């Protein structure tokens, strides 16, 4: 279980001025739960992810994983970035196994597991290709395989489909749900897309900017497995409208 209790983060800018990125965020994510985080740019979504990843320390409050304070990156946490962030000199297979090799945890079965994982992600036959030979969607698939190969307890995704075209994005969303369904790790998924958040998540955390705070948490009552057919359902529309109201309502209030 992931727990944030009154967590805040303040950065010191280049000019010495302090920027409060997050204030008093309290959230807990259960094992195997899929939580999406939506909000306008600058609402601290990515910062929240990096706090859970142990990449940046919290300024106030605590971040815990399975009851232990997160002070550094952990082996049971994996991250997927907006850019595929693949090593340009390594082929697909070596990219997927890179984290395990880096952590000295690669075993004799690592390569076989990587091949199997790539196959389930539709990348069979691309094992020896270089990233530059793949499309953007395929590169991001490799990045997701790389994260999944670590068998993480927690998967952190920072707008993973943000750089993809709309069609690839929809396809990848369903694929992600399938892969998650087989493994059931906790996922924190940062996105700009409200429909994407509703389609994927058990709960959607709506954040408001400057400083980043939790404005609302929306429970998505759609049955699983999810599909795009559900977009027309009343529950989907209710969730999407509520999230939209939270985000744009805040903006209207700020503009008034």
């Amino acid at each position: 279980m992931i727990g944030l209790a009154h967590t805040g983060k303040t950065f010191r800018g280049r000019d010495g001025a302090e920027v409060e990125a997050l204030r008093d965020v309290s959230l807990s994510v259960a094992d195997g739960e899929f939580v999406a985080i939506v909000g306008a740019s600058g609402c601290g979504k990515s910062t929240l992810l990096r706090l859970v990843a142990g990449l940046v320390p919290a300024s106030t409050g605590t971040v815990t994983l399975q009851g232990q304070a997160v002070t550094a990156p952990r082996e049971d946490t994996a991250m997927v970035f907006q850019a595929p962030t693949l090593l340009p000199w390594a082929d697909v297979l070596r990219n997927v196994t890179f984290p395990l090799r880096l952590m000295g945890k690669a075993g004799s079965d690592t390569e076989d597991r990587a091949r199997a994982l790539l196959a389930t992600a539709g990348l069979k036959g691309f094992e020896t290709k270089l990233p530059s030979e793949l499309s953007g969607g395929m590169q991001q698939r490799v990045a997701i395989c790389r994260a999944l190969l670590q068998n993480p307890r927690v998967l952190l995704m920072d707008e993973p489909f943000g750089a993809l075209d709309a069609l690839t994005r929809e396809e990848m969303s369903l694929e992600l749900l399938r892969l998650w369904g087989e493994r059931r790790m906790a996922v924190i998924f940062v996105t700009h897309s409200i429909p994407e958040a509703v389609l994927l998540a058990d709960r959607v955390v709506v954040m408001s900017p400057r400083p980043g705070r939790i404005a609302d948490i929306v429970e998505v009552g759609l049955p699983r497995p999810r599909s795009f057919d559900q977009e027309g359902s009343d529950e989907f529309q209710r969730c999407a409208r509520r999230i939209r109201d939270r985000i744009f309502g805040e903006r209207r209030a700020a503009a008034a």
Partner: protein
Amino acid sequence: MLLLWEAAVHAFGIREFILPAPSAVWTATIAVWPTVLNHTLATLVTVLLGFAASVVISLPLAMLIAASPAISAALYPLLVVTQSIPKVALAPILLVALGANELPRIIVTFLVAFFPLVVASVAGLLATPPELIELGRACRAGRVQELVRIRLPYAVPFVFGGLKVAAALSVVGAVVAEFVGADAGLGYLIQTSMAFFRSPLAFGAVLILAVMGILLFQAVALTERLLFPWSSGAQTGAPPAA
């Protein structure tokens, strides 16, 4: 171009010591070929040793500079100083200090060639995308692992950009050194030929130098393609030649 040159020399009756025709250059060079070959080999040795010195010294230097802003602040001004001093001025001093042997020539070659290599390598080491560094940190990589497994490979295309510039500049450096103090080499050959208005032979030496530069450049490019095939197509940032 050679034909145009040949034709122009004959058509306008240009005198040989001002601009020799390609045919005259060829004849003059072939006539003393064993001597020319000796000079070429002498220059090649200086070029290769100077280039090798640049590589061996520049890469660790670049790693130091990239590793810490403090070291960078301390070293960069010194490096710039070495670049601001004209090597032609430095060469005689080195010659007196180190004696009339190969060493001062190698040092001059190195001084001319190493700077762009350092600059390009530092740029490469610092150009690693922050996400890649974050990926390394998320995988609990230490600083050494980060350097060896992420930053260094990422810098390879940049390093090769610098190597190509350094290869061409090594030829320049070697000739500068030979102009000042040498009893062999193509630079020496050019100087002695011109002293006797033997322009065709001097032109021949210049052409051999050009070919040497091209071959060295191509050798670097070929090495890159063979050893790092992914690098050739990658974006590189070679700085302008000093």
